[in-house]
């Protein structure tokens, strides 16, 4: 009985997992590549959807609206980046400030706290309604294409001179500056790219679920981190190539939504998921630390020096 229900829910799990994986890849760029925890994404995860819905209901072509959503995310990243680099505000705080400001901005964009959009009236790219159909309109197909295109584009970009400069900035900013890299510029660029992807993911999500809500980004950063960390813990031994590491993030996101579904079927409410997500992330972050301490004591090297 439980298995049948789970199997029935599976297509939806895959679609959601794929949509959120684009967001998680955005988080990967800041958290793993730039070495910055960017909390802007909680706001951007609404902005992208809000911009998309408002434009499409206003008569825009959905593809053009997707581009606009991406740009809106980049603008949010630009604000955080400038608060951090030009104003000297610590990255975490800069992200929190932008996130807070975006709450008001998102309400202004939508005009209300929740904006619906119907797949019957507008030519949306994805919709939850078609998730069980064996047709081209199945959202899983479109989501796979978007995820693959994202990975492909990022694989190319981070192999270019500019992309290498962004990676060097995250790896060792001192070295980057000594090699003539303007680390302020590369940091802003990375934040813009990251938030652009988050907004793109948000635009897909808004279409998929048929609405954008001012609350829909709450806790997004933690979900993104969960996907990144699950992917890393499970696949870092086998996936060494950069494209495969991004694929690991996608798998992490899919696994997260599978666990999500299982927990819901076990009788917990979706509201409980924030607590569970936080616990998962805390646990996965703590385990390597505990492991380090444990092994440090066993080998007698530098015991107690971790504190």
């Amino acid at each position: 009985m439980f298995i049948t229900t789970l199997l029935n829910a599976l297509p939806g799990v895959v679609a959601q997992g794929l949509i959120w994986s684009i967001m998680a890849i955005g988080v990967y760029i800041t958290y793993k590549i730039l070495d910055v925890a960017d909390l802007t994404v909680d706001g951007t995860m609404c902005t992208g959807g809000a911009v998309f819905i408002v434009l499409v209901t206003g008569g825009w072509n959905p593809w053009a609206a997707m581009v606009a959503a991406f740009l809106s995310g980049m603008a949010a990243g630009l604000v955080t980046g400038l608060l951090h680099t030009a104003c000297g505000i610590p990255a975490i705080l800069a992200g929190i400030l932008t996130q807070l400001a975006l709450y008001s901005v998102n309400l202004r964009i939508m005009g209300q706290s929740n904006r619906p959009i119907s797949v019957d009236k507008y030519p949306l790219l994805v919709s939850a309604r078609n998730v069980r159909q064996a047709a081209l309109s199945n959202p899983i197909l479109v989501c796979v294409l978007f995820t693959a295109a994202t990975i492909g584009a990022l694989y190319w970009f981070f192999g270019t001179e500019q992309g290498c400069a962004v990676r060097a900035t995250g790896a060792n900013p001192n070295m980057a500056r000594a090699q003539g890299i303007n680390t302020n510029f590369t940091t802003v660029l990375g934040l813009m790219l990251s938030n652009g992807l988050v907004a793109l993911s948000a635009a897909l999500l808004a279409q998929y679920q048929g609405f954008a809500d001012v609350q829909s980004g709450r806790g997004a950063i933690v979900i993104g981190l969960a996907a990144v960390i699950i992917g890393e813990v499970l696949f870092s031994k086998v996936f060494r190539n950069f494209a495969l590491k991004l694929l690991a993030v996608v798998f992490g996101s899919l696994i997260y939504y599978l666990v999500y579904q299982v927990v819901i079927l076990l009788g917990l409410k979706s509201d409980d998921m924030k607590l569970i997500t936080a616990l998962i992330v805390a646990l996965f972050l703590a385990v390597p630390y505990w492991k380090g301490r444990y092994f440090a004591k066993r080998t007698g090297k530098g015991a107690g020096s971790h504190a």
Partner: protein
Amino acid sequence: MLELKNIYKTFNPGTVNEKRALQGLSLSLADGDFVTVIGGNGAGKSTMLNIISGAYSVDEGSISIGGVDVTRLPEYKRAPYIGRVFQDPMMGTAATMQIEENLALAARRGQRRGLRTGISRAEREQYRELLKILDLGLEDRLTSKVGLLSGGQRQALTLLMATLKKPQLLLLDEHTAALDPKTAAKVLSATEQIVRRDNLTTLMITHNMRDAIAHGNRLIMLYDGRVVVDVRGEEKSRLTVEDLLEKFNQASGSTEADDKLLLS
């Protein structure tokens, strides 16, 4: 080539931690000068290199490299002129990137970085050849992550990166101090070889007076944020450790030779 004029730099001014690191430092380097720099802790050696590279800004004075006034330029805009190797082997390389990627970053020092490929096939061959000079077996490990290398290997790699694109000025901040004696000797001989080959204008800080005497055509001693001893050419080649101690005493006005201050 390098012109430092009357530089002042004070850290934490107006607090109990106030530290006057440079006090009227002036120094002029000719093209091709290989200058070794000695001085006790707190004499201002590292601060001098950091204000040249732009890691710190100056309170007063001016800095020019090859006739260009760089006093107000940020660190990354001075990078086209300057190659640097730091004391800490971790500082000069990106641990999570491959050896060849690190070299490719260095090869583009001072160039506009666009959307061309970050590393080309022709470059790889060139890097393989260059790594052979170091004699550390790195030429077969181009795609290894730099984090896997030892401190000495990383320092040698940083040296190669600093000189990959011929800099107008090479700054070495006690770049062998954190290495074991054998590796330090290896890195130092590679340094000598590269500096000679490319006739690089070089400032090398060292804590080791014998190294300071053995290398370069000129030696300066800093004390209290100023140059107090400056020997070159013939005189430099005849210099002994005893001479240096005496010069230090004269300059500092102290009556006893405090080796500790110099050799610490």
